[in-house]
């Protein structure tokens, strides 16, 4: 396999530039800090939610906007397997609360100097190996439950994606302005 270890240089360069910018943004956002991530789950610090909701809204307007303008932009939707998605999310959340990082922020945290993120990432390699070894069983018994294919809410309902994007913007703007007001009152 090692004669085919590397993809072509332009692919590696594009991934590298993306990763550099992503890591830079994560550090500037503070989400490379254990305190900020666990602080989110303890409902003390809402940085994670603010960053994620903003990224999702800006991203969705851009991606669906470009598609509406007729640009050739493909979607990369992951398969909905209801049991797998839900169980995976529950397991992931529990691990993330203990580790204090998700995979991307753990790797970036190493760059920022967090020593304890290193065993966390080593554990991730082991976890990936364990998953691969148990995949045949999981595929038959878990991933087959509630498999709807690669669907979006627009596909599922037949409504335009813009209804969902508009709904998301309304909920996020209302929720985040309320949150900001609450945070300001709690500080003073």
């Amino acid at each position, binding site marked *: 396999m090692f004669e085919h270890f590397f993809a072509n240089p332009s692919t*590696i360069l594009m991934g590298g530039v993306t990763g550099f910018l992503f890591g830079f943004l994560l550090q500037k956002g503070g989400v490379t800090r254990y305190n900020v991530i666990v602080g*989110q789950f303890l409902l003390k610090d809402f940085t994670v939610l603010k960053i994620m909701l903003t990224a999702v809204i800006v991203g969705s307007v851009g991606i669906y906007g470009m598609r509406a303008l007729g640009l050739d932009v493909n979607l990369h*939707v992951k398969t909905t397997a209801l049991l797998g998605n839900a169980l995976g999310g529950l397991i992931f959340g529990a691990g993330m609360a203990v580790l204090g990082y998700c995979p991307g922020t753990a790797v970036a945290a190493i760059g920022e100097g*967090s020593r304890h993120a290193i065993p966390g990432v080593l554990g991730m390699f082991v976890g990936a190996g364990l998953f691969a070894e148990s995949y045949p069983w999981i595929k038959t018994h878990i991933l087959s439950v509630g498999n709807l294919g690669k669907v979006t809410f627009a596909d599922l309902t037949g409504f335009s994606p813009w209804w969902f994007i508009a709904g998301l913007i309304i909920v996020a703007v209302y929720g985040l302005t309320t949150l900001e007001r609450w945070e300001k009152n709690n500080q003073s």
Partner: protein
Amino acid sequence: MISILKKARWSPYAVGTGIGVLSWVTFALMNKALGVSTTMVRAAGAVEALVSEAHIRSNSYFVKYLGTLDEPYPVFEWQFSLVVMLVLGAFCAALLSSTHVREVVPDLWKSRFGPSKWVRFVGAFLAGIVVIFGARLAGGCTSGHGISGGLQLAVSSWIFFICLFVSGIVTAWLLYGKGGQGHV
């Protein structure tokens, strides 16, 4: 411009906008979605291949991402390169603002599990296993599902996102309780 780069923290809305715009670029110019956790599979497969390549070529999950013996896919591809460069991006961001940390045991952890470095390292290692197992079961992590999938309005991603938050909140409160808020 320089003063912005030197600032220790940016507004979360600015950072979120930056990540959103970055995803426009990856979707439109690279035909890729931001993600991280698949790289852990490729890394694990590459390490296992050092012991037995035949083994990973016969495992259907590794074959999905690394190909077969006759038709192998590259290990170090777009996302692998992204993950490696996350380290440098965060390193440079911290360097510009002189906010490097030498965190070995975080305060909150110390308050609950004591100051031992090794207890924290073993805890982080085990939690890392759990995190990736969950990510692969769900089909993605906070980046691939949470951000990339969320912005595409994928049903799978929103289910994952909501379950992650509920479980994270429950786990953190079970571990640290209200007193934990004083340490973060």
